[in-house]
């Protein structure tokens, strides 16, 4: 109960102690004065009244203590937590800047990753609708049965419930993608919600400009209007404040009446809203479209009441259709967690799995804390003299540990603040990148956001404190252990403190990690470069787009036409679009293909007659396959290397001929001329079971590599597109002038030819791999950060251990040199053990890297390469020994004997 309230009150009590104390004082005084005034009104003398009021009030000092206890501050009083310690902590941070920066950044990174993960998982598992009383907005579903089938509600049902249900204010929407024309720039079709005007009163979000939809907009014959979302307004209309009143084409011509504010996407992720003409669409119940229904619980109504009422109404509406029966009614939370979106259920297992993701960053934090503890330990040993003296002067062990903990807490707090700043950026960034990769077909629901919630801030604070405990208290306990015994010794040269086995293990693991991680990063970066090879034609002069055909978008609510009729209409529309483009002075060529160069091509398992070279695994050779028009290579301006292209006859009849590319010749056939040989497709991503009844294709030509990227390299096969133009297909236009600016023109032409034609992803071909690159850049950035971190922590750790060794054995080195030993050999013997640890770590890291290289798709599987790399890493690690070694060599025997 009230965790946040307690945390706030505790923080205030700790940070503003004197304010809180003086407030208590004032309150007590005020009470006593008021009581005394009352007693004087009863006839008592002023002096007597004041005395009596004091007596009645009780012992103020004791009450002040109780007051602190009731705020939970007593425990901290026991720690003698004081500002002096905090100041000392800050001074220590300034005094050891190298360590502060290394340890602070490492902790900040770990806390940042932990806080981002926590925020993302929280949002994903139990999202909150960012609307006024968002928990009262619900999803409504009523399922009916007919002939043993379960069928959802239609708009006709909704029209009936809308007037009958009292406990929920209802709304409904139908979503579709539509091309928007009329802005200043082109873009993909936008996701439009045709919705009842009630959506806006249910969401309770006022528009940024203009007005929302109103019930009058739903009436038959009302002027067609639209409300657009903030992102659309910024991207297509450049945030023009006079956009209200402008006409656009969005499923017919309509007027913009309003712009919604940033972050609003209700019902889910919609970018524009049009009125849903319920009475028109629901006039014939048999033809009414299905719809999604939502609502807001009426004041005072509970979910259970709403569900009961909906069931009653559902029973009634079921009887309106002959042969239909009522199944069930549901009123559910509106903002579904991702587990429900993906699996359709909010199962406990899925939630637990999601929550357990938080453990990974915690493990990272633990690892980093162990390293920081090592640094702190080495530094604390250097202060042993100070600790021994303070103990002699009567400081308890608890007092000293508290002080060292406070110092670590200062570092932990700074790291938490920095980590939260990183997390604030990281959450939005991760949502953008990951969401696009995981759920390609869905934009991000509007209730996921990049900000940090209160619990996440508290969580980061807790992580900061935990880090301080591990990195501060553990080394402090180790250093202060047995200090009484050392008091009896004449010196305090660190002789009593040793680095134990655990620290040794930390160093060895540390070095191993700092060998492996950069190797993986390197492999990732090189893999990332492989995504975009240079193509042998000027990609930036070509505009490509996915060309779809959907009668729904033409405002035809139901497509009653047969498949053949639709195909004929699509073929005609495509041919007309091509004709118009070719007469455009800006366009020098147009062609169509089933994939664009450098896009991801689904793999196909293939077989070649007369044998091929040994395939990489038992699944055989896998390549990308693209259906193309005969003029494909001509439009791209790329001549074939060998053989011929497809003839018009071959293209129209869908003849079994193929053109392979250069990587295919090299990787599948192992070189030689492929002309006249045959190839066939056995299986693909959708049908993985090989079938040996597929037709053989004769290879008639060889093309250069044009970016047929299938995840199995660049091997590719081109086949004729066949008689039926398949939908979807990609259009490629070679533009003479400003290619990027040609996009909107292409959109307009397509809509002008046929309202049902839509172009998605209109962009120049140099931008095809943008989303893949963003995704790999995301991982590369994270991996690079981890590498830099691992390496710098490693270096700092090694440096600390060596410094510690020198500090601990100063006297010994001095005495041995005084007795005539050669300084260099003494240093070598002193450093033998830590050096051995570093080399051991390097060797282990090298073995792990080599292992990963053979398992993964790294380019690091050559033993020589790994050896050279490990040698380099070790050399970098050994750099960390230079300063302490020089310090050891400079030790004067007389100084050493006088030391301590």
């Amino acid at each position: 109960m009230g965790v946040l309230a307690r945390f706030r009150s505790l923080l205030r009590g700790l940070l503003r102690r004197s304010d809180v104390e003086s407030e208590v004082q004032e309150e007590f005084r005020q009470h006593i004065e008021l009581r005394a005034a009352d007693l004087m009104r009863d006839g008592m003398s002023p002096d007597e009244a004041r005395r009596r009021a004091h007596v009645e009030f009780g012992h103020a000092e004791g009450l002040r203590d109780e007051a602190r206890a009731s705020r939970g501050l007593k425990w901290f009083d026991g720690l003698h937590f004081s500002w002096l310690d905090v100041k000392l902590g800050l001074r220590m941070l300034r005094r050891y800047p190298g360590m502060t920066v290394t340890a602070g950044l490492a902790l900040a990174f770990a806390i940042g990753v932990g806080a981002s993960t926590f925020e993302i998982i929280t949002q994903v598992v139990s999202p909150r609708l960012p609307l006024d009383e968002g928990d009262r907005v619900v999803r409504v579903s009523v399922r009916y049965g007919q002939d043993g089938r379960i069928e959802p509600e239609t708009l006709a049902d909704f029209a009936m419930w809308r007037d009958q249900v009292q406990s929920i204010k209802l709304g409904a929407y139908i979503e579709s993608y539509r091309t928007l024309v009329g802005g200043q720039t082109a873009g993909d079709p936008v996701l439009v919600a045709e919705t009842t005007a009630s959506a806006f009163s249910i969401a309770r979000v006022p528009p940024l400009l203009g007005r929302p939809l109103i019930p009058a907009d739903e009436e038959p014959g009302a002027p067609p209007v639209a409300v657009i979302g903030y992102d659309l307004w910024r991207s297509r209309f450049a945030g023009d404040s006079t956009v209200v009143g402008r006409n656009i084409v969005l499923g017919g011509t309509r007027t913009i009446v309003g712009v919604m504010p940033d972050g609003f996407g209700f019902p889910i992720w919609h970018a524009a809203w049009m009125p849903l003409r319920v009475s028109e669409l629901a006039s014939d119940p048999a033809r009414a479209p299905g719809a999604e229904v939502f609502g807001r619980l009426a004041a005072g109504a509970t979910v259970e009441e709403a569900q009961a009422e909906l069931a009653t109404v559902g029973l009634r509406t079921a009887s309106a259709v002959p042969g239909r029966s009522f199944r069930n009614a549901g009123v559910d939370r509106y903002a579904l967690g991702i587990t429900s979106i993906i699996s359709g259920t909010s199962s406990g297992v899925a939630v637990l799995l999601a929550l357990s993701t938080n453990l990974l960053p915690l493990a990272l934090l633990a690892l980093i804390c162990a390293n920081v503890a090592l640094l702190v330990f080495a530094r604390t040993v250097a202060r042993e003299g100070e600790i021994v003296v303070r103990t002699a002067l009567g400081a308890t062990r608890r007092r000293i540990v508290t002080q060292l903990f406070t110092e670590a807490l200062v570092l932990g707090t700074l790291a938490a603040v920095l980590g939260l700043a990183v997390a604030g950026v990281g959450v939005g960034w991760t949502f953008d990148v990951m969401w696009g990769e995981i759920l390609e077909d869905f934009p991000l629901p509007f209730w996921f956001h990049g900000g940090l919630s209160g619990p996440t801030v508290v969580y980061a604070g807790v992580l900061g404190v935990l880090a301080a405990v591990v990195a501060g208290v553990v080394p402090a306990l180790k250093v202060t252990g047995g200090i009484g015994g050392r008091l009896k010794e004449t010196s305090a040269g660190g002789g009593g403190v040793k680095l134990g086995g655990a620290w040794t293990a930390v160093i060895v693991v540390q070095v191993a990690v700092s060998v492996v991680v950069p190797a993986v990063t390197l492999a990732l970066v090189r893999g990332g470069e492989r995504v975009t090879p240079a193509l042998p034609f000027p990609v930036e002069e070509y505009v490509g787009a996915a060309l779809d055909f959907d009668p729904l978008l033409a405002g035809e609510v139901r497509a009653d036409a047969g498949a053949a009729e639709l195909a004929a209409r699509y073929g005609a529309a495509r041919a007309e679009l091509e004709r118009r483009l070719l007469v455009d002075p800006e366009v020098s060529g147009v062609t169509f293909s089933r994939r664009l160069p450098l896009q991801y091509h689904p793999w196909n398992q293939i077989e070649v007659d007369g044998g091929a070279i040994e395939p990489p695994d038992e699944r055989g050779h896998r390549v990308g396959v693209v259906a193309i028009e005969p003029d494909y290579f001509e439009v791209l301006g790329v001549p074939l290397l060998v053989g011929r292209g497809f003839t018009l006859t071959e293209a129209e009849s869908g003849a079994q001929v193929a053109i392979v590319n250069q990587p295919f010749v090299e990787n599948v056939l192992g070189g030689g001329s492929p002309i006249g040989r045959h190839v066939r497709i056995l299986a693909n991503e959708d049908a993985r079971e090989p079938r040996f009844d597929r037709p053989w294709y004769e290879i008639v030509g060889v093309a250069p590599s044009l970016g047929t990227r299938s995840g199995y390299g660049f091997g590719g096969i081109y086949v004729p597109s066949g008689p039926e133009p398949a939908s979807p297909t990609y259009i490629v236009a070679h533009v003479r002038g400003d290619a990027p600016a040609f996009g909107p023109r292409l959109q307009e032409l397509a809509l002008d030819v046929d309202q049902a034609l839509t172009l998605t992803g209109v962009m120049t071909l140099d931008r095809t791999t943008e989303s893949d690159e963003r995704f790999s850049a995301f991982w590369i950035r994270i991996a690079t950060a981890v590498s830099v971190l691992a390496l710098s922590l490693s270096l700092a750790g090694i440096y600390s251990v060596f410094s510690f060794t020198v500090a601990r054995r100063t006297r010994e080195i001095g005495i041995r040199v005084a007795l005539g030993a050669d300084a260099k050999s003494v240093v070598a013997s002193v450093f033998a053990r830590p050096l051995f640890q570093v080399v051991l770590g390097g060797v282990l890291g090298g073995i792990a890297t080599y292992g990963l290289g053979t398992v993964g798709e790294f380019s690091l599987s050559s033993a020589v390469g790994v050896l050279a790399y490990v040698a380099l890493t070790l050399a970098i690690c050994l750099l960390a020994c230079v300063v302490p070694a020089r310090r050891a060599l400079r030790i004067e025997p007389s100084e050493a004997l006088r030391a301590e």
Partner: protein
Amino acid sequence: MTDQANILPGTLDLLILKAVSLGKLHGYGVLLRIEQISGGALQIQQGALYPALYRLEHKGLIQSEWGTSENNRRAKYYSLTKAGRRQLGEEVASWNSLADAIARALSARPQEG
């Protein structure tokens, strides 16, 4: 102040919540209000009120703000939060059922035993 009962341990918080639920009050006002609504039957050790007030504020059940008192001095006024209102409802219900049960137990006659 005659015939006063010392209040049961644990009931002070409940009484404070009740008093504050009737309107904003400063510390001394809370004391007077409790005496008033109990008809002067309950006696509270005056200073003990404050640790209890701070405890309730710490738990987020009441909130405070500084204002001006009847003697024109700065005074801290307490009011109930949403969580406090919930808590008060729960405690009143459980107190009533406990009081009922004890009253029933004490009114039992020999033959019922």
